[in-house]
């Protein structure tokens, strides 16, 4: 089943031709409308006319999250705000978030891509889509929502949280497709069990389309068994467009990248040089149709490989492997991006000038739990329990307000946290993906 057979199954030669035409337009638009792109291209001695083949994309400078931050909030937009109809943002590394803007046409394209993704994952217009991705600045909720409406399915915009109510609605309203993070899907399954709701008898779910955090084949097995569904992996990031950049088909053997709207490259994160097909490296995306925020060679920091081998589903678009890691120290906790440096900043701000801290991530009852270990130096130490508990609470509140997720704080003795030469080890991730 396809949503847009013509483009999803476009022969690769035609696809490449389309990509080249669209790349030229994108580069021109970026060069003439975004001062950042103009200055970095000029510094590299590149003009839009230099893009004559798809390989010429390698002449263009990379774009990083840092570039988006330096142009906070709207500096990377290629159109005036009057043309922007939607703004989303994701968490930033030092308090400043990344802001992305969409024109009416961008929203259209995104809805199209999400409709394709839902169909690729088994959805039809007869389905009742239970959308438990968070609605708000996060692109997950509204991204799926618009795609589901475009498809003509019935959307339940339930957003995250209040899991018992989710189960009740799923049962009573007859939800057939679940969209949320994979860890939340497992949590829902657990709550169902507690409530005595049998997924096989009481629930009509057929498919689940899960993303926004790393997961594994084992986790897929567990979700599929517990909820009695087919679980599909979806990929996206707000800087590129949001969910719908890539999605699995029902063969579940790699995620098809919407190549008529994006060019994907896999590079060696150290050298920036392209890697041969099939080799793991950093994913780099260039948007081909975006108006509000054209993005050129965006370094995702996500590690995966690409294949253009034909897929039995008939789609011609290249497939990416599951994301197997990151080139930076970003963690994804309950779907939220967390950088250790954000926590360091909070500790510095509350006067803890030599922050010795460690982030420990566990998965308890299928939910991510972040515990921040903070060494109690002689300077922080107070002789009274009340004062130390206040200190712990203050650190916890400040971190929670900076990250937007709940954390635990554990006060530990000095020298508990391993000191290392050079790069400090800041993270212990005990989750099994």
């Amino acid at each position: 089943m396809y949503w847009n057979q013509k483009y999803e199954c476009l022969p690769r030669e035609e696809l490449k031709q389309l990509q080249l035409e669209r790349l030229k337009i994108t580069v021109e638009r970026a060069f003439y409308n975004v001062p950042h792109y103009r200055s970095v291209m000029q510094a590299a001695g590149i003009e839009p006319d230099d893009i004559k083949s798809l390989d010429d994309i390698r002449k263009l400078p990379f774009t990083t999250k840092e570039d988006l931050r330096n142009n906070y909030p709207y500096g990377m937009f290629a159109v005036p705000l009057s043309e922007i109809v939607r703004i989303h943002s994701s968490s930033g590394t030092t308090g400043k978030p990344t802001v992305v803007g969409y024109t009416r046409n961008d929203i259209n394209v995104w809805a199209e891509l999400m409709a394709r993704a839902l169909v690729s994952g088994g959805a039809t217009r007869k389905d009742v889509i239970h959308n438990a991705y968070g609605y708000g600045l996060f692109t997950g909720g509204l991204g799926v929502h618009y795609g589901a409406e475009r498809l003509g399915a019935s959307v339940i915009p339930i957003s995250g949280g209040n899991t018992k109510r989710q189960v009740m609605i799923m049962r009573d309203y007859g939800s057939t497709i679940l969209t949320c993070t994979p860890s939340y899907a497992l949590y829902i399954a657990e709550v169902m069990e507690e409530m005595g709701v049998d997924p096989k008898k009481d629930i009509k779910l057929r498919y689940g389309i899960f993303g926004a955090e790393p997961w594994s084949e084992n986790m897929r097995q567990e979700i599929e068994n517990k909820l009695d569904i087919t679980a599909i992996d979806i990929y996206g990031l707000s800087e590129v467009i949001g969910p719908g950049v890539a999605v699995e088909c029902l063969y579940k053997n790699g995620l098809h990248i919407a190549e008529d709207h994006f060019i994907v490259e896999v590079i060696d994160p150290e050298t920036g040089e392209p890697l041969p097909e099939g080799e793991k490296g950093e994913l780099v995306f260039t948007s081909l149709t975006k108006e509000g925020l054209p993005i050129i060679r965006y370094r995702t920091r996500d590690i995966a490989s690409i294949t253009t081998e034909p897929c039995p589903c008939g789609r011609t678009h290249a497939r990416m492997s599951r994301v197997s890691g990151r080139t930076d120290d970003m963690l994804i906790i309950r779907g939220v991006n967390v950088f250790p440096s954000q926590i360091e900043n909070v500790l510095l701000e509350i006067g803890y000038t030599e922050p010795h801290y460690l982030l420990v991530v566990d998965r308890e009852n299928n939910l991510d739990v972040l515990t921040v270990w903070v060494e109690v130096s002689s300077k922080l130490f107070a002789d009274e329990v009340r004062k130390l508990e206040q200190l712990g609470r203050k650190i916890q509140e400040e971190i929670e307000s900076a990250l937007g997720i709940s954390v635990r704080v554990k006060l530990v003795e000095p020298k508990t946290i391993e000191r290392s030469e050079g790069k400090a080890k800041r993270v212990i991730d005990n989750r099994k993906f």
Partner: protein
Amino acid sequence: MKVNQISVFLENKSGRLAAVTRILAENNINIRALSIADTSDFGILRLIVDKPDTAFEVLKKEGFSVSLTEVIGVEMPDRPGGLAGVLDILEKNNFNIEYLYAFIGRGDNGALVIVRVERLEEAVRCLEENGVKVVTGDRLYQL
């Protein structure tokens, strides 16, 4: 009149208390009184020792978070109501007690209790005005 107490931050895990006492033993420091305040995650060990300055230095050198806190040593009759009498005085005069614990040895005329209050000097004056004996640090360390 003040007594210097050593406070040590301890995580709730096995062997920490033993580590502190071992370090004190190796440095020939004698513990005169101690108390532990604990929560589910951490504890605070409070000690009166014969050589507080040395104890502070060696524990710090061993990497513990240590502080010196001023407390009062109060002597009272070793009979029912002895402590109650002292606490009554502090309460009537609005001194808030943060914590207190008993001293292992005895004073010249009775039991000894270590008390931590805010406005320490005022508290000492108040107790003495009310006829309570407050023991000096130098005397306590050697008891």
